[in-house]
């Protein structure tokens, strides 16, 4: 860890200056605890989402240690706070992945910007990163495992469901950043493929933390009053959601008039909102706290015990970490070592139970299979599942609905070993196989 080496640096320079010195003893790699890095912001704007995941990881590690650890060794968490500052994510990832106390795996990040900041670091230092949040796709790194949803595991099924409900007009509202932009691009292409005309699609972007929703909501209400069944597909990010839903309900738009299906609103976000006026609005995820399975109930009970708060909630990214952690455990067990390359090879194909009663498998493109669910908001802040995909859907790293990525696939197994393989030209555009 850099802190220690900095300390040593200071010690070193003292020697150079002919003063006193002290040194540290190196710890051998294969003994002692297995180190698990947790890289989630505990302060700054992202703390609201990420701090829960840190607690969840601590819980999972504690449970695993109680169950005897891993390979006969204990797991030791290493928590850092990147302060919602992308460059700090990169710095701390580097810190975690160097030195004698190098971590064996990192669970962390939220938002693509932070992941992209960390990506070159984990690739350079050959680390493992489990990223638990839904994202826009169009990426596949040898060192990152994407346990959140790709667009085809969330957005497209949601739109399919709405179509089956007779929706003909679409308002795509999003916060102005990459995830909504890419998702909406995919959805727009998808909708047009399904015969929706340009006039029936409205796209609108707002800044982060936006709160003056009045004009936009009234625009949507106007858009929806043209006689066709209208729905809002929301990729609005965190903080902007509360004022958005408040404005919806205050302008008298209920779920039966214009339902909203959101991709970034889960149980945790709802816990900060009065949900009574939101009943019937929807969210698409791969897990809901209300999912009916014993694994889920066990997980919830553990979580409530761990937090000591009976009103604590669970959500989709927590399930993603749960799956990712178990996959990593299993891969380490089967490889018999925490060596990154061995784990990378061993983890493809690993199947672990997920929290909705099924199982998830790590695919060769480093995405996992997940069931897709649509939930409607209830007045108790929970979702009731109104639709679920008949089987688990495999995450697609490169969207089939974007012309520039339709021909791309990702497969990290030998011999292909490529994150961006063009099946038309049969060339690898990115990754070790590219050379």
């Amino acid at each position, binding site marked *: *860890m*850099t*802190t220690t*080496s*900095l300390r*040593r*640096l200071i*010690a*070193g*320079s003292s*020697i*150079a200056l002919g003063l006193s*010195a002290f*040194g*540290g*003893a*190196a710890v051998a790699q294969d003994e002692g605890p297995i180190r698990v890095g947790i890289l989630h912001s*505990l*302060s700054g704007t992202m703390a609201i989402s990420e701090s829960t995941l840190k607690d969840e990881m601590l819980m999972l590690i504690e449970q695993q240690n109680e169950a005897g650890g891993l390979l006969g060794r204990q797991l030791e968490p290493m*928590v*850092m*706070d*990147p*302060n919602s*500052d*992308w*460059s*700090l994510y*990169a*710095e*701390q990832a*580097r*810190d975690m*992945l*160097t*030195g004698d106390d190098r971590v064996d795996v990192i669970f962390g990040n939220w*938002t*693509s*910007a932070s992941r*992209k*900041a960390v*990506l*070159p*670091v984990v*690739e*350079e230092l050959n680390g493992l990163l489990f990223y638990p949040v839904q994202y826009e796709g169009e990426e596949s790194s040898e060192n990152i495992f994407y346990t959140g949803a790709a667009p085809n595991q969330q957005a497209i099924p949601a739109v399919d469901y709405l179509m089956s409900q007779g929706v003909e007009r679409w308002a795509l509202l999003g916060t*102005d*950043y*990459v995830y909504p*932009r890419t998702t909406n691009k995919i959805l727009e292409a998808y909708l047009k493929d399904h015969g929706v005309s340009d006039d029936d699609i409205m796209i609108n*972007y707002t*800044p*982060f933390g936006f709160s003056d929703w009045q004009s936009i909501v009234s625009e949507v209400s106007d858009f929806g009053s043209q006689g066709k069944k209208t729905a809002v597909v929301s990729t609005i990010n965190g903080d902007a959601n509360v004022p958005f839903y408040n404005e919806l309900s205050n302008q008298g738009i209920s779920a039966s008039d214009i339902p909203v299906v959101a991709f970034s609103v889960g149980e945790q976000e709802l816990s900060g909102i009065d949900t009574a006026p939101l009943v019937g609005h929807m969210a698409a995820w791969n897990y809901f706290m209300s999912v009916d399975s014993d694994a889920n109930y066990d997980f919830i009970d553990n979580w409530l015990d761990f937090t000591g708060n009976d009103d604590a909630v669970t959500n989709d990214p927590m399930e993603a970490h749960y799956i990712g952690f178990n996959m990593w455990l299993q891969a380490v067990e089967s490889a018999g070592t925490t060596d990154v390359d061995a784990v990378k090879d061993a983890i493809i194909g690993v199947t672990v139970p997920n929290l909705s009663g099924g199982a998830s498998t790590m695919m060769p493109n480093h995405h996992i299979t997940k069931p897709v669910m649509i939930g409607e908001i209830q007045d108790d802040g929970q979702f009731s599942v109104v639709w679920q995909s008949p089987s688990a859907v495999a995450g697609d790293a490169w969207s089939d609905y974007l012309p520039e990525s339709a021909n791309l696939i990702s497969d990290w197994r030998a011999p292909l070993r490529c994150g961006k393989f063009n099946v038309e030209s049969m060339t690898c555009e990115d990754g070790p196989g590219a050379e």
Partner: protein
Amino acid sequence: MTASDNPQAIDRSRQAFLSRSTLLTSVVLIVGMLGVLVLNALPDGNPLHVSSATVALLGKYFTYMLLALAVDLIWGYLGILSLGHGAFFALGGYAMGLYLNAQTSPLPGWQAVMTYFPVAALAIVLAPGLLALVFGWLAFRSRVTGVYFSIITQALTFALMLVFNRNEMGMGGSTGLTRFYELLGFSLSSEGMTVALFIASGVAVLLAFWLCRAIVVSRLGRVSMATRDAEARVRFIGYRVDHVKLALFVVSAMIAGIAGALYVPQVGIINPSTFAPLFSIEVVVWVALGGRATLYGALLGALVVNYLKTVLTGAVPDAWLFLLGGLFVLVTMALPQGIAGLLARRRGRQEASA
């Protein structure tokens, strides 16, 4: 800012370029750099070995020090407080980011010119320089001063953040530019490159420090201090205050741009959050903590705050904000001249007792 701020604190040896503090700072910088390089070259097992990660980290600190220097030049010596210097830093960073991106895949449209290093290098200083020129010309010409100036610089960087967040900018939207592999034909992930960037940043800090020092001790530097303390008087003895301000503001923006350009390959990403007003405010805080109107104070402040941030976020992730925030409050109350003031006072006492 008025002169009542503390006239006595002004370095009395400023007439000479090579004052004691300048010499000392230069020596510390050079010896520190060489020391790190030597320790880095030691074999891995050696207890004194300094890892490449640390070298990279120090390289990043250097770029922050450069930025702090840029802010101190105009705030400390000219009295104009920019709460938007992150914008110039980010622009330099984006120019570098485009160049780095161009090394792996061809860039679309006008950005293609950034493939060539000389063009990119020019853009690194010209983009922030031009922005500072236009913005400064508008602001100084119409005599926007004090907080009014500070707040519109904040508005500037905020507006740029929103603009760069848009995907239409072709700058990667909120994610920004990332996935850099090569710089001047060398792999960015090699240890050699880490060391090279560290040296480049350290040398840049040294050169910028000397440049700022030269400006500060020149007659122009005294005019700028005079402007800081009594702007109207300067005007009535015939100096074009707006030109003086503009010149230093542009120089400062260019230094910030270079800092950004050196920052990007070391951190591996540049995105709109660098434009966030909060970052620019933080830079001002570094300078204030180190000691405004002393160049070495700015360097020290940037180093201390960022080092503490690195250590504390890892050591006490749940409480580091209390410590850092508390430090800011304490320093302001106990050390009005920042750390540099403390050092100066101590030296004064030693000299008095000697």
